[in-house]
């Protein structure tokens, strides 16, 4: 049992325990950050697996993602702070069964399969390798990821934002003018003066 073995089992226990806490806590903020801790434990394991870049990058990516997760959890869950205890589950037994089955199946596969053994050599410049790969062989993957992310960005904006071509969110939707810069067609805007300044914030 080396030091790194002990660390590995500690972090594994941490990852699994915090993952379990995610579904057992009433406070949505705590749930989000429990998930974050689970990711951090996995990140620590990645560091042990001689992936220095991936490990630390996981920490910062997940810190940000779980922060956003917490914002949305609080926004859309009733009783977000868990002031009253709650249990919002359905098909509970089936889910437990599925979870256990998945664990058993994957675990059995891991135990029974003859796994390859070829550890990464110590001192291998893994970050540099990754960079070269990105710019060379996997350039297409890299640029495709860019396009995919762009599509995601556009999709999220379209789906989540209320504003559109016809004015800012805080002005309510308004039909375009009949002539450029003219009065909106249909109905007159209400209480225009109160909110006009928000349009001027962007700049």
């Amino acid at each position, binding site marked *: 049992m080396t030091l*790194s073995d002990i660390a*590995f089992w500690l972090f594994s226990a941490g*990852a*699994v325990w915090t*993952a379990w806490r*995610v*579904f057992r806590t009433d406070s949505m903020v705590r*749930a989000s950050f429990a*998930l974050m801790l*689970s990711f951090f434990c*996995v990140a620590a*394991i990645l560091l*042990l*697996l*001689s*992936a220095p*870049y991936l490990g630390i*990058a*996981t920490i910062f*990516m997940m810190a940000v*993602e779980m922060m*956003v997760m917490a914002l*949305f959890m609080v926004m*859309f*869950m009733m009783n977000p702070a868990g002031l009253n205890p709650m249990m*919002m*589950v*359905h098909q509970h037994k*089936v*889910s*437990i069964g599925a*979870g*256990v089955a*998945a664990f058993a199946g*994957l*675990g059995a*596969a*891991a135990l029974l399969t003859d*796994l*390859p*053994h*070829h550890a*990464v050599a110590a001192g*291998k410049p*893994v970050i540099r*390798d*990754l960079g070269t*790969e990105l710019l060379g*062989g*996997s350039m297409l993957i890299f640029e495709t*990821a860019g396009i*995919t*992310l762009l599509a*995601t960005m556009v*999709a*999220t*904006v*379209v*789906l*989540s934002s209320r504003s559109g071509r016809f004015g800012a969110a805080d002005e309510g939707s308004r039909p375009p003018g009949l002539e450029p810069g003219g009065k909106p067609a249909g109905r007159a805007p209400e209480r225009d003066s109160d909110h006009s300044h928000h349009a001027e914030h962007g700049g």
Partner: protein
Amino acid sequence: MTLTAILLVAAALIGIGLYGALSQQSFVMLMMGLELILNGVLLIAVGFWSLGLGGPPRGQLLAIVVMAVMAIEMAVGFALVTAVYRKRQADTTEGLETMKH
């Protein structure tokens, strides 16, 4: 720290994630389950890369792609939740009573 041990831990994470994804009623909690599953996948990918295959650069790229999938899943998922929440409210004529439950 063998590859088998790592796969076992990843299986546990995936199992818990699957339980969450199937059992949670609310959409946002369901997404937490999905994230957990991807967490396990990430561990498997890096485990294989590091202990099984001797560190080919593409293995790391795969891990990054898993993370990108996570980010995209989350972004689009939450955008959908927002859109649905807004829409449902607009559809509900009686107003807030139905929203509370």
